[in-house]
């Protein structure tokens, strides 16, 4: 059954993944789904295509290695699991077995950022830095739960590997009206127009950036929000465009280490392209192993919650341009 959704409603990204994979299994008879014991959302695919579903149990390394072996023989493997383990325990398999021969393995998972209240073993906070470092890897981080289906669909025809990052993915607000944006891997989405500053963001905190922009609009501030859901390859032209159209005032907000993720990728483009900025602030996870608490509390505690986003954006807008 196709999932239907409405703008503003809560939707489970995991259910979208499950349904999308079950649909894609019909279109792509060489599509396999693998998981290291995180298969609850994959039941629909498993029941429909049991011969192309593999749960290896708790063994991330072999899960990615098997996916590479399948891909060598012309299959399209999707590995679904928890990102702290897929991005770190199996990092070398991702790098040497998947990226080195440029195989079309899709790695999709949850727990990107300080989400899920599992403690630091269960937060993937370095994953985007690690994945962006890998030659041949395309890196995405998805906030809109409906969008993940589209990204999966597009990934089917990609030649090389892709990493698709979600937060918990159980219940997130649908951010975009269906058909509202042209969603393409490698292209950022202007989620909200504005002219005073741009907040670049990705993943679960896109919603927070939109809330911040809404709040600032009450003071007459016009803040653009860019959902830079593809971190690699990054949409350089959109960065150039936003610098020109929003006074060179950038805030980067992400649920990832503040250094090594989107902020660093944007800063690289700014430096490489010689873009003149008026102000640049990054909001993300500092060098801490965060403890417990709900997502919002953790973001507030570590300096990248809603209030901090609003404050940083105000500072950036107020910054002198000389």
């Amino acid at each position, binding site marked *: 059954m196709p999932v239907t959704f409405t703008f503003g409603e809560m939707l489970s990204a995991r259910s979208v993944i499950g349904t999308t994979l079950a649909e894609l299994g019909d279109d792509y008879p060489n599509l*396999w789904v693998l998981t290291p014991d995180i298969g609850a959302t994959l039941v629909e695919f498993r029941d429909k295509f049991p*011969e*192309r579903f*593999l749960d*290896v*149990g708790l*063994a991330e*390394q*072999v899960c*990615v*290695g*098997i*996916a*590479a*072996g*399948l*891909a*060598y*023989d*012309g*299959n399209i*493997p999707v590995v679904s699991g928890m990102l702290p383990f897929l991005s770190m325990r199996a990092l*070398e*398999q991702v790098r*040497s*077995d998947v990226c*080195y*021969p*440029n195989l079309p393995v899709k790695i999709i998972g949850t727990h990107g950022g300080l989400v899920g209240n599992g403690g630091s073993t269960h937060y993937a906070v370095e994953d985007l830095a690690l994945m962006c470092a890998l030659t041949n890897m395309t890196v995405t981080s998805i906030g809109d739960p409906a969008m993940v289906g589209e990204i999966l669909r597009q990934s089917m025809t990609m030649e090389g590997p892709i990493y698709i990052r979600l937060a918990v993915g159980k219940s997130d607000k649908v951010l975009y009206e269906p058909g509202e944006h042209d969603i393409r891997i490698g292209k950022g989405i202007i989620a909200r127009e504005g002219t005073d500053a741009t907040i670049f963001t990705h993943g679960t905190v896109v919603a927070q950036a939109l809330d911040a922009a809404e709040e600032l609009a009450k003071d007459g501030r016009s803040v653009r929000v860019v959902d830079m859901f593809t971190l690699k390859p990054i949409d350089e032209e959109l960065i150039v465009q936003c610098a020109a159209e929003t006074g060179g005032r950038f805030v980067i907000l992400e649920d990832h280490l503040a250094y090594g993720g989107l902020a660093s990728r944007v800063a690289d483009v700014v430096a490489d392209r010689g873009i003149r900025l008026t102000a640049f602030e990054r909001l993300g996870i500092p060098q801490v192993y965060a403890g417990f608490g709900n997502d919002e509390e953790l973001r507030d505690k570590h300096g990248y919650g809603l209030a901090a986003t609003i404050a940083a954006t105000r500072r950036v807008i107020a910054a002198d341009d000389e």
Partner: protein
Amino acid sequence: MGRESLQPGVEPRSVEELEDLAFELRSKLLHLCGTYEGAVHIGGDLSAADIFTALFEYGLHVDPSDLRNPERDRFVLSKGHAAVCMYIAMSIRGFFSYEGIVETYGQLDSAYGMHPCKVQLPGVECSTGSLGHGLPLAVGMALSARGRGESHRVVCLLGDGETGEGSVWEAAMAARSNELGNLVAFVDRNRQLMTSFAEERVVFEPYPDKWAAFGWNVVHIDGHDMAQLVEAIDGLPATDSDRPTVVICETIKGKGVDFMEHNLAWHAGSLGAADLERAMAALQASREKESV
């Protein structure tokens, strides 16, 4: 094209022919080790030379002129540092020219390097080198064959040292769980790691029991006895059977060259002109001794 066309030779090779080919492989290895200025993993090449020969000249259904034949057997070199031994074994089988290997090995833009790269060298099934990665890849290939109802085998060659990697045992468990009777692992049990002898720092024994405990069909042979290698290959269970097989091959690191055998200094090395002459003489003497 059916699998019949993928057999090595019209008639299966005899044990004597295979022994001659293994000698040729070792001679060419030593020659390369003498001409290439960098280090060659000669110890683990020589320990695996008989296994490579038995596979490429007897066991594997492959066709050098038809690299993408879906019915070909897949060979995964998990001990990627033995790449040069594989290149030469494949050249003897007709995949590449030996001259091309010797003349360019390790040089800028050569397809022949220390660890095999599928992207640069078509004919090689996969890129390996980091130890413990090959068996998971082989499991994936065996699953793919199963999924498509294909009847070829997936054969993976591992060193015993690398079976210290946990990912090998993850793969062993996955292979058994998925009843991959089309998967065969050959372990080059040369009982030497890079810097120590097996059992000295790392206890591997009871080694066959470990594989048996993971539910594998275990065959234990002398990996330098070509008749035993042939017998092990002949005795492999049908590919639609439900247990993966491991052929544990007892071998000697540096086999065939007396001053390299059981010698940690020859995990990897390079031969000068005088050493090459000495090594070739030792290889010849070892052959004569064994044919008596």
